[in-house]
């Protein structure tokens, strides 16, 4: 067999709610080329082998965040993981851990979407400016305070990596808490107090056990573990100071 027609066995977790009681693995023999991603492998299966396979994808270039999946047990984006790295072996593809499976590799994202709205992931200006007053200005230094945390693409790999979310889905989870920090750390934003009601709770930063695997799997180097845990000290100080702070003062 020449290098041009290598094949790889892809074991894909299937689940068709109308006919399967529980998920099971189905193996496909996939011919591939060196520049094929796992997503392309799945597309080959859907186009040429089994059109019933369901999975989410869109941009194919690691920016839409749709094709998160467990690849050999590790949360990864299907589009930026290459089949050649798993060659001369099998490759196991499953839906993201900790989320209910809707069908095959498609997960139910309702919980994530609902929590995302809860942290108000948008700028809440300290002082609303009128159009004629111009833009909300910011220095490069102020931008640096949150830039890293703003690159999240909501791919949810960090949720599949977080055992604390898996053990207790009440926990807000890494990606969304990192986004909360992103807005709190923005010099133009004044919504910190509104967001920290959730932040100070057991469902907020205190639900994190600093496993930090979320930061390992993040494809955008957001480092959610850092975004969450750097808030613990502040949340703790606020916890104690509220007893001595004068009424009406804000911290």
């Amino acid at each position, binding site marked *: 067999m020449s290098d041009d027609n290598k094949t790889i066995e892809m074991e894909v977790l299937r*689940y068709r*709610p*109308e006919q399967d009681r*529980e*998920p099971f693995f189905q193996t496909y023999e996939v011919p591939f080329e060196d520049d094929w991603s796992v997503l392309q492998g799945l597309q080959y299966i859907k186009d040429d082998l089994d059109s019933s396979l369901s999975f989410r994808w869109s941009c194919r270039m690691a920016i839409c965040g749709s094709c998160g999946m467990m690849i050999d*047990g*590790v949360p990864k984006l299907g589009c930026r993981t290459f089949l050649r790295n798993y060659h001369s072996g099998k490759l196991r593809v499953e839906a993201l*851990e*900790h*989320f*209910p*499976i*809707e069908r095959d590799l498609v997960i*139910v994202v*309702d919980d994530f979407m609902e929590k995302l709205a809860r942290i108000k992931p948008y700028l809440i200006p300290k002082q609303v400016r009128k159009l004629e007053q111009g833009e909300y200005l910011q220095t490069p230094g102020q931008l*640096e305070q949150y830039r890293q945390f703003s690159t999240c693409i909501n791919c949810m790999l960090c949720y599949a990596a977080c*055992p604390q979310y*898996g*053990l207790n889905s009440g926990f807000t989870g890494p990606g969304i808490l990192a986004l909360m920090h992103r807005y709190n750390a923005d010099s133009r934003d004044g919504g910190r107090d509104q967001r920290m009601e959730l932040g100070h709770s057991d469902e907020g930063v205190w639900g994190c056990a*600093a*496993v*930090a*695997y979320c*930061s*390992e799997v993040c494809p955008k180097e957001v*480092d959610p*573990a*850092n975004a969450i*845990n*750097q808030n*613990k*000290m502040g949340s703790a100080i606020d916890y104690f100071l509220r007893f001595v702070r004068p009424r009406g003062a804000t911290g």
Partner: protein
Amino acid sequence: MSAQSGKRRPYLRPISGWWKRDPYFIRYLAMEATSILIALYALILLFGLLRLSQGEAAYNGWLETLQSPLSVGLHVLLLLVFGYHSYSWFKIMPKTLPAIHWRGAKVPQPVITRIGVAAAVVLNLLVIAGLAGVQP
């Protein structure tokens, strides 16, 4: 969700045995498990304090127990565990800190870990060296 709920039957996989998924989780649990032996060491000291308060004979009994091979073996294990605790403590520490800047550049997290570990090594050695100089 309710519009098509007739056909939807989301399947949630069990979480049991999650730590077997990745060696990363085993290291995390090892870090957490150091706490069991740290608690044990604190209890050994607390017991020593109790014996001390009960007089010389009681206290000497505690000292003798510390000399038994079993106790020395346990303390060698404790030494290793405390060493791993120091390392893992400073490994996770940069996650708990806001970005630190030095001469206009962000200090990389591994550097913070190395500084912490170095501080731990120096302080531990200072304690031992300081007490080695004491000749009561």
